[in-house]
């Protein structure tokens, strides 16, 4: 057995593991574990309307950010 096999196996497993780790850390950072109830209910209330609403909200945010003039 050549040593490159063990190098490859180890790097592959550590790489895959770190992808999972970064996924988890991303989830923690984006606040998905802050409010357990709400995220669980999010699945319950999911639907076409909600999707439309989310898209609309994104658009609105963008528009507001473009036109925003803070009052002095």
């Amino acid at each position: 057995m050549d040593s490159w096999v063990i190098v490859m196996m180890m790097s592959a497993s550590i790489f895959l593991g770190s992808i999972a780790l970064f996924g988890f850390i991303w989830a923690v950072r984006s606040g998905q574990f802050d409010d357990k109830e709400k995220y669980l209910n999010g699945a319950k209330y999911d639907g076409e309307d909600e999707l439309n609403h989310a898209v609309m909200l994104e658009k609105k945010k963008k528009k507001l950010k473009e036109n925003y003039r803070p009052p002095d």
Partner: protein
Amino acid sequence: MSEKIACTHCHLEFDESVLIQEEIQNKVHYFCCKGCQGVYHLLNDSGLESFYDKAGDTKLAPPLEQFEDASNFDAPAFYEKFVKSTKDGFKQVSLIIEGIHCSACVWLNEKALQKMDGVIEANINFTNNKAIIVWAEDVLKLSEIIMMIRAIGYNAFPYDASIQEVHANAARKDYYQRMIVAIFASMNIMMIAVAQYSGFFTGITQEYKNIFNIAEWVLSTPVLFYSGWIFFRGAYFGLKNKIVNMDLLVSTGATLTYFYSIYITLLELGEAYFDSVSMIITFVLVGKFLEVLSKKSAADTLDIIGKQIPSEVHVLKDEKIISLKLGEVKVGDIVIVSSGEKVLFDGTIIQGDGSFDESNLTGENEPVYKQNGERVISGTVSIDADIHFEVKKDFEHSTLASLVSLLESAINKKPKIEQLANKLSEYFSSVILLVSLVTFVVWYLWPHSFEVAFMVGISVIIIACPCALALATPVATLVGLSLGAKRGILFKEAAQIETMAKATTLVLDKTGTITKGKPEVTSSHNFQDFDISLLLSLVKLSKHPVAQGVLEYLDQKVDAHLVLDTYKQIPAKGIVAEYEGKQVLGGNKKLLDSYEIECKHKSENTLFYFAIDKQVVAIYELQDSIKEDAKQVIESFQSRGIEVVMLTGDNADSAKRVANEVGIETILSEQTPEDKSKYIQRLHDDNKSVVMVGDGVNDILALAHADIGIVMGSGSDIAVDVSDVVLLNDSLQSLEDAFKISRTTFGLIKQNLGISLLYNLITIPLAMGGYIIPLIAAISMSVSSLLVVGNSMRIRLQWMKG
């Protein structure tokens, strides 16, 4: 009785006759009030009607109909305090939404706000009902946002999010991420280390050794520099304050080992110690995380107090009633308070009379009757009084405001007893660093090569790795916390267990703590036969604690409801009514006197007289009785050498009676909330550590000042917030349990620290002698940590059985 029908909006059930009927799209809807009807139409019009599908049968509070003007949310002073600017220049405010019952409510609030033009973000936390709203100020005013929340049937209060709570949460999250990275890397490193160790005994070629070393190097780098950043920071701040702390030991040990291992790996010299680097960091980080996890945030407390103070009062000016903000009311203004409202200023009554609930200040539930010319105190609540009073002090100097500011300072300046482990680790760290330096110098001069001497010196630090020391306290306190939780004792912060174990003085409040806090009938005297349901119907009309006590006593025996005519409640005296032409009255001696009814019965207890047509037919004696286990529990404290003191706002006689009965010698009666906290500070000055037990608003100052504030679960919300320990089942027995648990836990901490020190006593000489190989270092680290955890589990099991 006709069938009950649920209101379409709030789902509360009412008789059909009182409901508003409306036909909408060929379907009849019922509403309990205009408010509910309004909200229903608003939701339908804005396309949010699916709220009702989501809410199901959840009962909501009907929307409040009267609101104070929301325009004060736009005031500059308000903006300065609560509104922040985001990076993009938008405005952000944190609100507590009141009236959230279910997840559908959160959904509704978020959607309704997000639909508003100008709102960029609306995020509500379901668990604590706190909302963060970001909006564009040029499109929308904050008051419009508030009006929207109110329009859909909720209410919003601002809170200052800049205080500790947010910081505490952020710190917790930060620790968590660092810990996860450390654990992930350590687990992988240990897996690789297994291969290395077996290679150590069975023979391994340098080629494979290099592969493993480099893999470990890659994995341990984030552990040291990302996860271990906390220790570098801690060591830096320690050095700045000239303190040698455990962080310094951990960070020097780990860094030196790391660079030494790189050196070994690159020159192919011997054994690398990367596994030790990541294990030290991981173990100590887990210990630190446990500590951070069990820290309480004092932030919410002040929010709740602020919420309880209305922002406006009604003032009589030029014969007109106007609403003024608290800061605008001047000395000499006439303020109007109606029944059920809170008195917010100190002053003198100039018109009207009635009873006031002064339990916020005295702790006694008995209402106090006040009339023209008497003083009213801010913080008290009018029960049935409609009065006009002249303001004698402005709000900033009122009793209420000074209580709030005293409380704020007490919460921020809470005494902290230094923890045993912290004290110990300072010495430990200095000694180990010194020993390792000495070892290195001795080996180098002996003479050995620099590499060998350096390795032995480092192995001392590695083997003395304070893993077990770092875990000793957090693991023990976690055991204590879980033991407490099983018995209905909630410690809010782990460190308090240790503080409590060191307590020398126990201060008890009387009403609600030693006694049950409400009068109970102890004996009754019937002079004539009478219809007992008549008395029952009479006392049902009053909210007075004495009437309630009689009601509770009677309710066990009879169940009847008569309708009384011309019912009248006479403040501080009793109730008078008519039934089938007969005059029925119930109340105290003063009531009898004013109706010229004679009765010779005398007693030191509170008496409730019941008379029909000027004839006293029954007398009930009431007493605030002492909790069953009070005497025994207090005796057990005294036998353990803890000084027990009773503080009460009640008068000296009744205080003495209770104290004698339970065997307390030191009593202080007629104490105001400030007196109580001053007394606790005096005890502090005598170097005593004080545990204060109370239940009411009048105790909060003292609770906040004490080393440990314990509150009964039935206590007021603010008291529960200010306290450090909550006894959920109200019994004094659990107070004793809390003490027992804290002492056991403290003993456990000492044992654990002993184990880890003993372990080091054996292994450090071995390391100094140069007998330590990486395998032994790794095993010793795990074994000492396991011993500490195992010992803590042993205590837990013992308690579970006992």
